[in-house]
């Protein structure tokens, strides 16, 4: 039983730390937020394992509900803005290239 619990603990904690690292290192906003939502799920498993069902309930209600939705909205906004900005920058670069071509001619 105690060995089983130890294996359970170590797998839970290793994946938790791996998830947190991936969430922190992910440069794309939406991916980072989805990793963060999964991190919240893992966290409530940890609270359940440590005998804190109150905290697990709160984490489940907040992590799966309102927290994830808030962050997803923000991530989508920033992804859209990045797209717009990239388009704009591409346009600008094209213009500049046109100008330099004209200069060369």
């Amino acid at each position, binding site marked *: *039983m105690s060995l*089983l*619990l130890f*294996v*359970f603990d170590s*797998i*839970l904690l290793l*994946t938790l730390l*791996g*998830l947190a690292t*991936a969430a922190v290192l992910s440069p794309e906003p*939406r*991916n980072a937020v*989805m*990793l963060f*939502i*999964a991190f919240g*799920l893992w966290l*409530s*498993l940890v609270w*359940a*394992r440590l*005998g804190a*069902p*109150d905290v*697990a*309930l709160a984490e*489940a*209600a907040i992590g*799966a*509900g*309102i927290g*994830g*939705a808030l962050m*997803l*909205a923000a991530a989508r906004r920033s992804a*859209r803005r990045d797209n717009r900005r990239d388009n704009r920058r591409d346009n600008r670069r094209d213009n500049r290239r046109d100008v330099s071509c004209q200069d060369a001619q």
Partner: protein
Amino acid sequence: MNMSAVFLGLALLLLVTMAAGLLRIIIGPSPADRMMAAQLLGTSGIGVLVLLSSALDMPALIDVGLIFALLAAVSVTAFTRRRIDQDPS
């Protein structure tokens, strides 16, 4: 061999499969892949919670699973919805 050890072993098995599903969230090429993987993990998470509630003798963990089941749709809805002034893309 008592029952709670069996339940704990089953929870461990589910946790290992969840860890495998985690790979899809981390490498999954498109955001939709990641979202689906997160939903799948939520479902297995409910299983782990129910098994843990028997193994550790904490009936309240079933309530946690209930809340997960209830709110599973929220994040996937938030993922797909568009605002009024926003073109569907």
